[in-house]
């Protein structure tokens, strides 16, 4: 592969339409929301400049901190589940030639389903009174759960739903990483007489790290802004137990019509996501070599 970069001027011109289009689409929304976030603007009262008022209010708002906490818990739980299980499934798949074909088509189905469908589907399955989930627990001799209606279990349940949808995606990405590793890596290790687990942790895992980090970055962007499934199933309830920052901002704006305050929440959330992505791509570059 050559390192020459091609005719730079005309190449930049090719990239320009995409950049201009994106900027045209997002520049105004960001500027507008930023401006709103400095306004005291609640429907039915007069709008006026509030300076940093909304942001100061955030600091003293227990529901804002609740939102941060829930967002982080959900993030860690979901990402952990998805990366762990995803890598595990990828390794299983890599070792099994027979199942690979059948499973591949199965693995792509969850994450191409519309979130609305996933939400509705799980809403029915997890219904505490009539759902199949409790029926299975009952057969297994376990106590029934209130699932999405339990303040204690709602976040783990949402994490399970999200992981059902996205673990296969992670598995496919990691599988790609596995398949690109030269077979000689394993052979050398096996001649050394290393155990299977030992080989995985000492040899395979470090080489897989870039793929895993890629999956982590892709999932992080969605998980930190978690919205769809909660909007469809619990809307932040019961009693704020699933009120992620994104849901909280949305409800402030579109349910209570505190538009200035909601804008401050959305700007804060965008900053958090941007920061996380930058940090991770930095780590990604470090992890590579």
């Amino acid at each position, binding site marked *: 592969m*050559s390192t*020459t*970069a*091609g005719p730079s001027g*005309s*190449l*930049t011109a*090719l990239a320009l*339409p*995409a950049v201009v*289009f*994106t*900027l045209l*689409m*997002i520049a*105004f929304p960001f500027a*507008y*929301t930023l401006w709103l976030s400095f306004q005291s603007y609640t429907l039915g009262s007069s709008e006026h400049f509030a300076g940093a008022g909304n942001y100061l209010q955030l600091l003293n708002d227990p529901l804002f901190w609740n939102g941060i906490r829930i967002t982080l818990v959900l993030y860690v739980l979901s990402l952990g589940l998805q990366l762990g299980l995803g890598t595990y499934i990828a390794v*299983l798949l890599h*070792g*099994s030639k027979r*199942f690979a074909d059948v*499973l*591949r088509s*199965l*693995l*792509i189905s969850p994450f*191409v*389903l*519309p*979130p609305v*469908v996933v939400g*509705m*589907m799980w809403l*029915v399955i997890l219904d505490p*009174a*009539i759902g*199949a989930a409790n*029926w299975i627990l*009952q057969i297994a001799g376990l106590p029934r759960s209130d699932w999405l209606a339990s303040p204690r279990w709602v976040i783990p349940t949402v994490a399970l739903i999200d992981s059902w949808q996205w673990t*296969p995606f992670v598995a*496919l*990405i*990691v*599988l*790609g990483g596995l*398949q*690109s590793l030269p077979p000689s890596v394993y052979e050398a290790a096996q001649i050394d007489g290393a155990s*299977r687990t030992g080989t995985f942790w000492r040899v395979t895992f470090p080489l897989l790290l*870039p*793929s895993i980090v890629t999956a982590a970055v892709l999932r992080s*962007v969605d998980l930190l*802004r978690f*919205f*769809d499934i909660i909007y469809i199933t619990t809307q932040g309830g019961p009693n704020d137990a699933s009120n992620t920052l994104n849901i909280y901002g*949305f409800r402030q704006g579109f349910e209570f019509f505190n538009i200035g305050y909601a804008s401050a929440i*959305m700007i804060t959330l*965008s900053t958090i*996501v*941007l920061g996380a992505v930058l940090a991770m791509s930095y780590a990604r570059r470090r992890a590579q070599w």
Partner: protein
Amino acid sequence: MVSATALRRLGGLQLALVSLVILAPVAWMVLSSFKPSAEVTAYPPTLWFTPTLDNYRQLFSSTPFARYTLNSLVVAAGSTLIGLGFGVPAAFAVSWRRMMWPALVTLAARMAPGTLYLLPWYLMFRWLGLIGSYWALILTHAAITLPIVIWVLLPFFDAVPHSVLESAQVDGCSVPRTLWRIALPLVVPGLVVSAILAFIFSWNYFLFALVLSNSDTKTLIAASFNFIGEGATYWGALMAAATLIALPPLLLAFAVQRRLVAGLAVGAVKG
């Protein structure tokens, strides 16, 4: 190595379990959509029942399903085309010139919560006179499809040897012509994968359509919220709606599954 076979069997067993966990909820949804309404809410759930099409009939008689489907198709196809139109040259340039910033800028749209865009985009499209037209939805969905196209295509372009591109230059090929005649034919698998993914994610997206579409342009996904509304308290019909909405993305994904999986794998390694 006696235990190797045993281990393989154990692995197979675990994979079977994984398949079951993935499949069961979807199967349950489809099954429920064919249950008579009284049996959907029966507890313990019935596994054997006489299937009925009542739920589907009720759905089609109560909603202009075909119209919403058409709207979804127009929006998803339109935004996929725009995503490809802007995304393909951008991915080509980013890959050849090794400059990441255009790819990162297009990703910026995904950093903010979707709700941030609702009020300002409505204002914008009103100024442009596009409220109530498909364009409002196509353009907003293109903001989602564009980064998908670029990021999926990048590794495919990366795999094209630069020597091929350079010799085209030497032969006097302009840059756009090099892209069109030399590079594009080499990344057809990537084009297919990115187009399908863009289409699927546009089809699935509901938030923008909830406030930017009107009675003429409402997408199937946005309309599906009505099924949970007043007067529509039938789980069976809800499951029927969910099944129908899920069908197009599932079929599309299955049609290109081999390439889709390969595409994701390539992206992971190079990206």
